[in-house]
């Protein structure tokens, strides 16, 4: 839908500013009460979810025009969705996240492009990944691993690594560990290797919705081609794309879909994954936006007056994946979980999303540093998450700030507990 | 007024025209009562109704008079109403009608001359009680006390500094009549009553709270001609307790614990001299009584109201008892040498006969200000230093600590008593108090009611406040006819 089509959402905004705060009954301190990185960092109302909507309203009402300044404000936003969750505590008739997406599509349509994002899109077009790394080397990360070639060897489970796990050398051990973990549980696993491509989620969020659709089509046909009945991804971004975005675009993957944390929970439940080694650590869990509120399933499109839309069709952020990773963590002997103040549907973003890492790296780093502080405030030794984008930016932030905090992917801890690895230098080997 | 403008007899005539000849006097004897330590006024007028007051103020504007409103009977002790030479005293103590009492809404509408005793007599049969300062003198005006922001003895009913004052009618120095709070209008009082109103909302009208600038103004802004005051229900069960302690810190700790959850009704701390003086007829008896007292006594009461009054007192006794235990103090049910009845009277009644401060030795000086309970020990140190410097016997200084605003701050009062015939003692007390005020202010004491010489102490510290206050004064009393020379308005008018 075009920006214009969201007029009622936009003019529904009462300007209550709830979208700048953690839902109020969960405000636990002065320090960690804010939820929106964009307006917390930049302060002008325009940077909030509400502000972006009002800018949209102003433009569609012919009161102002899209220009570089406005474009930059629209894109200085992780699209983390915290504003959407907070607004929906009160409102049934505003889909704030949809408006933010429509604003970006509007920018692209109007030719208001962010140079760094153009590079990403070029890279995607050229090499099917957001980094512009050679397509042919996409499967290199799995070299020597005991996995099937999904295209041809018909695994039961297709493992989708995603762009960052495929190419980020610093995270290579992590994703390899994830695969080893699954294999150790006897999962019949395959990867698409060089045939894997971007899920298309990033393109969608940058406003290139058409591009995104191509990748979705590509993914759907690849999954079909493998004959796998289960799709597991270790990347939260990809998971949100598969679980929410694809159905929204009308694309059916036709397989059972799991984020790796969900799959580990299932394996552990079935007794196939045995987490027995003690990992004595006080940890805190970071809910990736794309695993949490943004992965909430698509509920169909409501055509009429949203004030009358059934609540079941309202995305509230409550149906994200929150319990699975916590359950896995709790099942690891020795792990003690302390929660941060901002969790689940109202978690603070890592900072990397929405194209911010590419276009405004210092803002991304600031956002991550804020989360690191929150993690430290719990007294935890380690911050655990399950998304390569979060992992990467947190590790960089810890290095940058010198914070005394280890950062792990959940699979790393599980790997150690399963007796398949050891923790060394803040990562599992 | 033609032909006689400016002459005293002309003025007298004009005033008599407004209030009747019997209500104007220039008898020296009568005027002396008002002079206090100030100068001799020219005349006293005794209006009997609000409309006369407005006329009087308008006349004052035309004739450039200086009006000094007085509501209580003598002696006029704080200096707020000590006149400049030639002033016209507006004595409102004759306006003593209780215009309305309302049991359901717990409120009385009264004129400025109504005294505490009078009001108590009127409302107690209704099952209500008057919120009052500790042992006011018999002829103290309820409205004057509220306008002076005198602290009341039940901190839990002192929500904000203007309590228990609610709505007022005031004649500003400009001669204009104004009503504050929900009395402001629309509608006459009668119309408002017919619609179920009771003049209980102290705020407004609209976007200012002009009653707050009339309060604390010592009559420099205008004259209040009637007001509503908040009343509370008379307890059906009531018990009194005493904490007798040498360690003031423990009493302060206890106070914080029980004031916060609004457990106590009356709640105040007295040192042995203040307690003894309040409960005796003179210095000698006081000295005997003081010997029996602990250095400090905290007096509190627990109350039960209409529903299960005894049960309320009983559970509070346990809860407060626990707080006492934690603070390391032991509640007792009596104090030595005094029948309990006397203490109840002290809490409940205005002074009968002579004002208690006067009873001690005839003359006295006092110094009081606002601080917080936890700052009291520091203030005691500062005061102790001053007393030492002036060789004033410490044990003969009364100390009264009255928590206010639910315990968020407190009124701290020192009393020095002397024989008025003893010029040395009087001068010494005077000098001591002057010095103490400055030292205490340096230590953070807040002279919220800056009478007489304290005005200099208080206002020299807040030039921005002074500037704003003068603006307000210009607005409400442009002719400068109200009680000249007071507060920070020396140059005004």
């Amino acid at each position: 839908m075009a920006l214009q089509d969201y007029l009622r959402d936009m003019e529904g905004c009462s300007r209550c500013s709830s979208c700048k705060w953690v839902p109020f009954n969960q405000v636990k301190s002065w320090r960690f009460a804010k939820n929106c990185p964009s307006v917390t960092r930049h302060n002008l109302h325009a940077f909030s979810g509400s502000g972006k909507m009002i800018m949209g309203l102003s433009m569609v009402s012919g009161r102002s025009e899209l220009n570089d300044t406005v474009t930059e404000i629209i894109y200085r936003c992780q699209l983390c969705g915290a504003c959407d969750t907070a607004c929906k505590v009160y409102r049934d008739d505003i889909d704030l996240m949809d408006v933010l997406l429509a604003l970006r599509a509007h920018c692209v349509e109007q030719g208001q492009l962010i140079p760094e994002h153009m590079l990403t899109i070029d890279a995607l077009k050229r090499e099917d990944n957001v980094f512009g790394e050679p397509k042919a080397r996409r499967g290199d990360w799995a070299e020597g691993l005991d996995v099937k070639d999904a295209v041809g060897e018909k695994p039961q489970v297709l493992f989708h690594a995603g762009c960052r796990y495929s190419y980020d050398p610093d995270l290579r051990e992590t994703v390899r560990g994830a695969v080893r973990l699954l294999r150790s549980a006897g999962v019949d696993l395959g990867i698409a290797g060089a045939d894997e491509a971007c899920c298309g989620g990033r393109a969608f969020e940058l406003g290139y919705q058409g591009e995104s659709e191509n990748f979705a089509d590509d993914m759907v046909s690849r999954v079909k081609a493998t004959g796998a009945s289960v799709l597991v991804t270790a990347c939260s971004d990809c998971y949100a794309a598969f679980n929410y975005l694809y159905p929204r675009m009308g694309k059916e993957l036709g397989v059972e879909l799991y984020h790796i944390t969900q799959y580990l929970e299932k394996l552990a439940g079935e007794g196939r994954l045995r987490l027995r080694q003690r990992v004595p650590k006080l940890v805190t869990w970071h809910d990736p936006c794309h695993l949490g509120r943004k992965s909430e399933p698509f509920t169909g499109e409501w055509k009429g007056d949203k004030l009358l839309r059934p609540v079941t069709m309202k995305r509230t952020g409550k149906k994200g994946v929150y319990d699975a990773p916590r359950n896995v963590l709790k099942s690891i002997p020795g792990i003690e979980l302390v929660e941060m103040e901002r969790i689940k549907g109202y978690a603070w973003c890592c900072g990397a999303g929405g194209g911010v890492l590419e276009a405004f790296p210092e803002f991304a780093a600031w956002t991550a540093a804020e989360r690191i502080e929150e993690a430290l405030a719990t007294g935890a030794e380690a911050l655990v998450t399950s998304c390569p984008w979060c992992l990467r930016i947190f590790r960089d932030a810890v290095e940058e700030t010198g914070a005394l905090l280890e950062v792990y992917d959940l699979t790393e801890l599980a790997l150690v507990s399963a007796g398949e690895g050891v923790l060394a230098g803040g990562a599992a080997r | 007024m033609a032909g006689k403008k400016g002459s005293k007899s002309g003025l007298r005539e004009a005033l008599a025209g407004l209030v009747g000849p019997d209500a104007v006097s220039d008898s020296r004897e009568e005027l002396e009562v008002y002079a206090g330590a100030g100068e001799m006024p020219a005349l006293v007028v005794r209006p009997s109704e609000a409309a006369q007051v407005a006329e009087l103020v308008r006349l004052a504007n035309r004739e450039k008079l200086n009006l000094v409103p007085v509501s209580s009977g003598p002696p006029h002790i704080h200096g707020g109403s000590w006149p400049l030479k030639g002033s016209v005293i507006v004595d409102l103590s004759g306006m003593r009608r209780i215009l309305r009492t309302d049991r359901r809404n717990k409120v009385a509408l009264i004129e400025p001359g109504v005294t505490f005793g009078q009001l108590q007599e009127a409302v107690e049969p209704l099952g209500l009680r008057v919120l009052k300062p500790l042992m006011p003198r018999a002829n103290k005006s309820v409205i004057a006390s509220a306008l002076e922001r005198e602290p009341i003895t039940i901190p839990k009913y002192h929500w904000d500094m203007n309590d228990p004052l609610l709505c007022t009618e005031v004649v500003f120095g400009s001669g204009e009549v104004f009503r504050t709070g929900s009395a402001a209008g629309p509608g006459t009082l009668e119309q408002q009553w017919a619609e179920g109103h009771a003049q209980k909302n102290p705020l407004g009208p609209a976007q200012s709270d002009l009653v707050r600038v009339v309060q604390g103004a010592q009559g420099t802004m205008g004259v209040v001609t009637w007001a509503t005051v908040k009343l509370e229900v008379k307890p059906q069960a009531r018990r009194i307790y005493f904490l007798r302690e040498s360690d003031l810190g423990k009493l302060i700790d206890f106070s914080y614990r029980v004031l916060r959850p609004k457990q106590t009704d009356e709640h105040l701390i007295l040192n042995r001299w203040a307690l003894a003086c309040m409960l005796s007829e003179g210095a000698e008896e006081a000295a005997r009584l003081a010997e029996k007292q602990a250095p400090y006594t905290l007096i509190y009461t627990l109350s039960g109201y209409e529903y299960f009054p005894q049960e309320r007192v009983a559970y509070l006794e346990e809860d407060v008892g626990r707080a006492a235990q934690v603070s390391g103090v032991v509640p007792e049910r009596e104090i030595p040498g005094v029948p309990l009845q006397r203490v109840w009277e002290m809490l409940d009644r205005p002074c009968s006969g002579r004002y208690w401060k006067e009873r001690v030795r005839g003359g006295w000086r006092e110094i009081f200000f606002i601080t917080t309970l936890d700052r009291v020990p520091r203030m005691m140190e500062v005061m102790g230093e001053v007393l030492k410097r002036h060789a004033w016997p410490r044990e003969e200084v009364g100390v009264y600590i009255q928590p206010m605003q639910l315990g968020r701050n407190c009124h701290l009062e020192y009393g020095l008593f002397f024989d008025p015939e003893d010029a040395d003692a009087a001068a010494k007390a005077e000098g001591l108090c002057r010095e103490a005020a400055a030292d205490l202010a340096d230590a953070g004491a807040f002279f919220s009611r800056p009478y007489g010489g304290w005005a200099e102490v208080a206002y020299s510290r807040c030039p921005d406040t002074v500037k704003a206050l003068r603006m307000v004064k210009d607005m409400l009393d442009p002719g400068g006819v109200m009680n000249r020379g007071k507060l920070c308005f020396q140059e005004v008018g």
Partner: protein
Amino acid sequence: MSVEEARREFVELLGEENVSWEPAVLDCYAWQPTFNDDPDRWVKRPVAVVLPSSTEEVQEVVRICNRHGLRFKSFSTGWGAWNGPTFDNVVQVDLRRMDRIVEIDAKNMYAVIEPYVNGAQLQAEAMKVGLNTHIIGAGPNCSPLASATSGWGVGHDSIYMSYSARNLLGVEWVLPDGEVLRLGTLGSSGEWFNGDGPGPSLRGIMRGSCGALSGLGIFTRCALKLYNWPGPPEMEIDGIMLDAKMEVPENIGYYMCFFPDRKAFSDAMYKLGEAEIAYNALATSFGGYFDILTPRLFRKIEHADSIRSMIVNTFKYTLAILFAANSARELAYQEKVLHAIVREHGGFAMDVTRIKDFFSMLFMSFVRATIPALVFRMGGSFSTALDRNDALDSQAAWREVVREIKEGYIRKGQILDDLADNPYFVPYENNTWCHCEVVYQYDPRDPKHREALEPIFLDVTIAAIERCMEPLFTSDPRVRRLISPLAGNFSKYQQAISRGLDPKQAADNTLYSAEADFDFSGIDPQRVRRLQEVVEQRRW
């Protein structure tokens, strides 16, 4: 007037990222649809927005405005049309960078805060030390400083925690000429513990029942009274609102009471006030609950007369009352008194703590006032018949008056059907006085609803004057002109205060000191006559 020059100076002062005059960015301050009867819902666009971070910067911003003939309008959170500019040359001062809790003095029960601390933040921190802050009914998104210094100030907890204006101690106030005025002890010793004096209290010119709405300068810090909180220091809740799940904390009691008629309700309320037992008390109707909890269902039963009258009449006089006791003994006593009073007045009391899910859903909506913004659910917007508070009896009568006015509009389909009786009824300070406003719901996108807003406003104003009440929206220049002569010409004093503190008239003070005439064209002449009549009848 040099806007360009001023903008340059702002940038110099605050840095580029804290100043903007980008039209779309400015429109984020011009979109003020709440409590905005203008169908357009945009207010004037400011000429710049600035984000100062300290008192000194605020002073400098104000001085720049004075120098360049600009006006300023500040806000803390900026919810409601009263936050927007009313002149063409207004600089919007967004105070969100001033967001610190400067101090909590737990012993003396106050907190010193800056403008952009919200109610939820302050409450969370206060509770950690056994204290609580008054939160206005609008919700915890609002700034306690804004309500106390500049807005209104009623909340569900007013029975225990009073009215925002009465909770002030020391105040730091940047006057419209850029000078700082510090009220009470703050001005004398830098301490915060008292706000009045020496001598006359300048709180009296700072605000009244309503604040100056930025028309008298900018408040940069204030000390606010905190109150006892015997509940848990941190609340353990799962869920974000109506889905909340929690255990009933120790010594907390929560009841819904129902009374058979207005007299029984009012009598019981007087008794409850005198018993001094409540921590939180809000009387409303089932219409009040259901339009926010089940708005869709509600719209379906619109005009279904039998269901409607059943609900209206059965649950009309509902009181929610919360106890936060200091001991089990105290709670037992409070509950016993409640039962006695309710019984005596023919009502019944439902112990909500026994219905855990219901308790969980409503607890924070009372303690933190998290629920009110749900009022937008039914029609997308609402307004309220808000009038001067006084004795409870007068407020109970007001409720009926507005219900009747609303019924007419509901029948004609000009506002939504919330059962008409939708009061926000709250006693202050153990019912020393009492508040009742009556909410009405509308859909701002529906032209029929939009057209009705002005007539309703007028009807409510007439009714208020008739009932000897000052309409609380006297911030509206038209109401000011109408009411001021009936209430001591207060407008004249406000204008004098404005001139005195603001010689160059740099504050955007329309909502404080301007007067205007009603535009009666299009309003039926009978109504206009009635207005003139009641005005004449209500002079003193």
